[in-house]
């Protein structure tokens, strides 16, 4: 209401406008409150975990074994495999997604674009559980037939990572395409006028100009990969293990949370509160990534007039 401009002819403000405005405000407020509520609960329950006699913060951060049932609370094995699967996913999604984006915005005709984009969007609409079974029943056997059953275990982080990469591909492609398309047409035309080919223009002019948007895309995709749950729960393995071999099974943070909450463990146990500590950790990681991505796009955002 503060922002409403007084009507030039002095008519009074209509009542239904006020009602609509406050209703909309209420809904906006609700989503903020929900976020706040989640954060509060995460912190509260995590405090229960860290205040338990068995757990110390240094043990949590630097311990190399995770098995809360027998008092081992080192988060490194879980964190390590979360990072492994996410990195593999990014290795798949970044080159592919960026290529798709460049093709769509710089090369594709309007007709191809109208076919490819909806297909990408279909890919984005597939439930993640389907991707999970795709990893388990297609990607894992494929990897095993390529590298040998001796090398690749039944549950492994490589298969899960690759499939997460496929899963976030549409996200990377569409966001990167938006970032690239946002570069003003004049820049391209100027480059062409100076005699550059389309490829030269794309790689020397357009991509650097779109860098802030692209970095934001990559970081968002990374936090999506870190938070991905169903695929790793099904395909990455169900036992914490500190390994750098992507062909071995190792449980991720999200995978552990699913396994423990699926069996509804006792509310008073340290197992149960541990999943909140892990949730908080995930939240902090993805929140930091989002903050960085925002500050990058704010800092390097270029205005072209």
């Amino acid at each position: 209401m503060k922002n409403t401009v007084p009507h030039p002819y002095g008519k009074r403000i209509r009542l239904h406008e006020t009602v609509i405005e406050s209703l909309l405000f209420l809904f906006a407020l609700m989503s903020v409150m929900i976020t706040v509520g989640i954060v509060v609960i995460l912190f509260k329950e995590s405090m229960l975990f860290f205040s338990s006699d068995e757990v110390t913060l240094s043990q949590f951060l630097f311990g190399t074994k995770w098995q809360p049932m027998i008092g081992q609370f080192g988060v490194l094995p879980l964190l390590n495999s979360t990072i492994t699967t996410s990195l593999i996913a990014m290795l798949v999604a970044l080159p592919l997604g960026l290529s798709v984006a460049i093709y769509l915005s710089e090369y594709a005709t309007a007709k191809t674009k109208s076919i490819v984009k909806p297909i990408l969007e279909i890919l984005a609409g597939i439930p993640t559980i389907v991707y999970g079974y795709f990893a388990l029943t297609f990607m894992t056997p494929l990897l095993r037939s390529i590298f040998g059953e001796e090398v690749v275990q039944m549950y492994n982080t490589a298969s899960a990572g690759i499939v997460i990469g496929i899963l976030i591909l549409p996200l990377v492609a569409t966001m990167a395409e938006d970032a690239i398309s946002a570069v003003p047409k004049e820049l391209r035309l100027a480059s062409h006028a100076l005699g550059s080919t389309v490829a030269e223009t794309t790689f020397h002019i357009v991509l650097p100009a779109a860098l802030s948007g692209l970095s934001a895309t990559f970081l968002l995709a990374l936090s999506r990969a870190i938070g991905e749950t169903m695929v790793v729960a099904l395909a990455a393995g169900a036992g914490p293990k500190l390994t750098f071999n992507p062909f071995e099974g190792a449980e991720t943070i999200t995978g552990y949370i699913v396994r423990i909450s699926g069996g509804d463990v006792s509310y008073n146990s340290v197992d149960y509160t541990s999943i909140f500590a892990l949730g908080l950790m995930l939240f902090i990681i993805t929140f930091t990534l989002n903050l960085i991505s925002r500050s990058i796009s704010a800092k390097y955002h270029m205005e072209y007039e």
Partner: protein
Amino acid sequence: MKKILLTLLLVSLIILPVAAGGSTEQTETVDAYGWIEDQMVNGLPGVNPLKVTGNIVTAGSSTVFPLSERMAERFSEEGYSGTITVDSIGSGAGFERFTVAGESDISNASRPIKDKEIAQAKTIGRNPIEFKVGTDALAVTVSSKNTFVKDVTLEELAQIFGSAVYWSDVRPQWPKEEIMRFIPGTDSGTFDYFVEEIFDKDATAMLSAENVQLSEDDNILVQGVKGSEYAIGFFGYAYYVENKDVLNVLDIEGIEASEDTVNAGVYPLARPLFLYSDASIMKEKPQVAAFINFYLTYVTEEVTSVGYFPASEEALSQGRASWLEAMEGTY
């Protein structure tokens, strides 16, 4: 104003389900025992599933799950029109639902209820009654690709699932390859049973071993064991029977799991399967009593095809006696 709206919304969210729950219960009390037939079957009053109304909630052991699911299917096939849910979440979690939240009517379990769980149940006014419904021969399995392990002793099992890293650590003639372990999650009765039998109630050795994958979902374990010739796992016999073509079951102490060895009580890892309920639930929700009655009457006909072994006639008739005692004077 905004606060009031928000509060109203929240309050209505909380009240609605409660109000809905209350109204359905009232309609169900009409002729609650119409399903009881005059004829006695196997020592219990006959059940006519067509006349049973209302929903039944069961949860617990993933080992008992295939059996309960089969009984639920048969109950529905014979005319029961309500909804019966069978959740496979592990015995421990099942008891948690039954004794803490009181959300389930029947708790499936592959281990007996613990004293502290009984005490917990009493605080919410439930007094668990035990019904033995079958016997499981816990199956220790390897992939059918595995050619070197055929039988193990109980001591070797403790090594395989505990301190040993390589197969050759257990028996020198076995290959020097890492043991891949697939074990039921810590919330399952199968886990508890195994720890009790093999590790003398101390799970530390098993949980701190390398290459351990835990899951409450036995199908994940089957997938894992099947995947590598150096993998080993254990679960209820029914999951072995279902996957006979890809798994080999090991003899324990030279004894093969079979109906004879299980019935004779010589198979070392045979254990009873249970249902738990409570007399007050069975009286309040006669459909629960009807289902347990039906279960106890026909379970022996179904148990073998699911992949388990019948409970002894003595155990079954004990269960029937408990049923009659719980329902005394109600119909």
